[in-house]
């Protein structure tokens, strides 16, 4: 973990209620896709956690959905604004386990950490494919980006306005999957784990007090006892979790 001051470079609407924010600043604490940062918003007490969607030297991107007071304020951040962030939080995905053809499964904002994971897997010569679920076509994002990377994309939307009608599991063949990486709402993760015969990793979300292991606010009970989503996670092996 590092405490840094980031500068907002971009903050643009990319889908319904969904913004992409690009920061310049020290990205050196990030070591694995699936890690997150914890961002201070003046006027609010707790920091807000966001998965890092992409990073390179001096540049970090998050994508966030406006859901409450904090993300509403973030949507008003202008270029050049300074933001206090804790960086390099969480364990991130373990890409060494992926096998040749891992399946990436994302629901809504859960698609975000999969972008960096996908690029990392490609860089290692793997052939990932991705299944994404959204509420409707207007909320969907990243389809083009994945396609430009040459990654097979399948999509489901609840209202059928894009791709298959239904949940993300309706857009992918879990039976053909040899290893998976999943991120999204708990019911989706639960369903994915139940449907999969293969091993995999899932990323959890929990309300956080600190984001770096101090408060025990984000505990999940696993096969090996209580674990902190912010430091022992957010990524857990499928076999670790008790649903």
């Amino acid at each position, binding site marked *: 973990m590092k405490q840094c001051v980031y500068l907002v470079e971009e903050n643009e609407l990319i889908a319904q209620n969904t913004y992409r924010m690009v920061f310049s600043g020290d990205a050196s604490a990030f070591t694995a896709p699936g890690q997150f940062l914890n961002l201070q918003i003046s006027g609010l*007490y707790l920091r807000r956690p966001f998965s890092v969607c992409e990073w390179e030297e001096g540049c970090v991107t998050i994508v966030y959905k406006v859901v409450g*007071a904090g993300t509403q304020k973030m949507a008003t951040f202008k270029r050049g604004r300074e933001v206090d962030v804790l960086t390099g939080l969480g364990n991130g995905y373990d890409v060494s386990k992926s096998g040749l053809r891992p399946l990436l499964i994302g629901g809504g904002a859960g698609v975000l950490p999969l972008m960096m994971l996908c690029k990392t897997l490609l860089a290692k010569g793997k052939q990932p494919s991705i299944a994404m679920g959204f509420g409707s076509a207007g909320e969907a994002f990243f389809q083009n980006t994945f396609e430009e990377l040459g990654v097979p994309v399948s999509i489901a939307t609840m209202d059928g306005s894009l791709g298959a009608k239904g949940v993300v599991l309706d857009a992918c063949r879990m039976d053909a999957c040899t290893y998976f990486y999943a991120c999204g709402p708990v019911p989706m993760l639960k369903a994915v784990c139940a449907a999969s015969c293969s091993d995999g990793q899932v990323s959890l979300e929990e309300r956080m007090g600190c984001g770096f292991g101090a*408060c*025990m*606010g984000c505990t999940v009970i696993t096969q090996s006892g209580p674990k902190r989503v912010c430091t022992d996670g957010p990524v857990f092996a499928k076999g670790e979790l008790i649903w």
Partner: protein
Amino acid sequence: MNTSITLCGVTLSNPVIAASGTFGFGEDFAKLYDINCLGSFSMKGTTLLPREGNPTPRIAECACGMLNAVGLQNPGIDKVISEELPKIAEFYHKPVMANVSGFSVDEYAEVCRRLNDQAQVGWIELNISCPNVHGGGLAFGTSPQAAGQVTKAARRATKKPLIVKLSPNVTDIAEVARACEAEGADGLSLINTLLGMRLDLKTRRPVLNNITGGLSGPAVFPVALRMVYQVYEAVCVPLLGIGGISSAADVLEMMLAGATAVQVGSANLINPCACRDIIEALPATMAEYGVKDLKDMIGGAH
């Protein structure tokens, strides 16, 4: 300029102690800065047996503060002794404070007994005020009789300096304080969290799985300050002022009210270097208000 104070016979280089439950067992902070700059730190509340704590969500946002309902998740006293204390010894070389909780008078006493021979432990802080476990902590902290009883049992069980941590969720905190002093408490720390709650308008249910939680952060500072001021007039033992402290000026204000030392809690969660930053700012803030020896501030407003 002198920032040192003496707490129950142990001299601290400065009065800033990290508060229990917001500093874990120190490890995550020791990675960030040399925590030997602290006056001390109070370990996560420990019970006889390991506890998984409450189901999540355990945390809610409030104006100038937060709610928590962690529910005393901890590895149990034996693991704290066999695993955490040795780990702490690697990065922290001063006495630590052991924060103890329980569900019966006997449990409190037994945990104190097991801590007796731990040389690293400088003080035992008896948490009789956790609002987040049912039938535990808070029940002892809201009645002078029960508070006196558990203090008495702990007093018999340990020779370590015994600090009792009081609940603010009472009509008359001075009364509880006097009961603890009468049964042998060497110091009092106050306040623990104020019982509060938040509701989620989307689900129309409490945000916290536990329904209610403990309010902490700058929002509670005026209440904490008032209680320290009141208790200072009611007892003779030293007080640890806790509640919403997030700057060196807050430390001075709490000491003026009557605190010998202070604890910094939630501020650590928001700014992981809060304790260090406050300690570093102390000399300049003392100079601003013409304070040469921090000890002179203790109770100065009375």
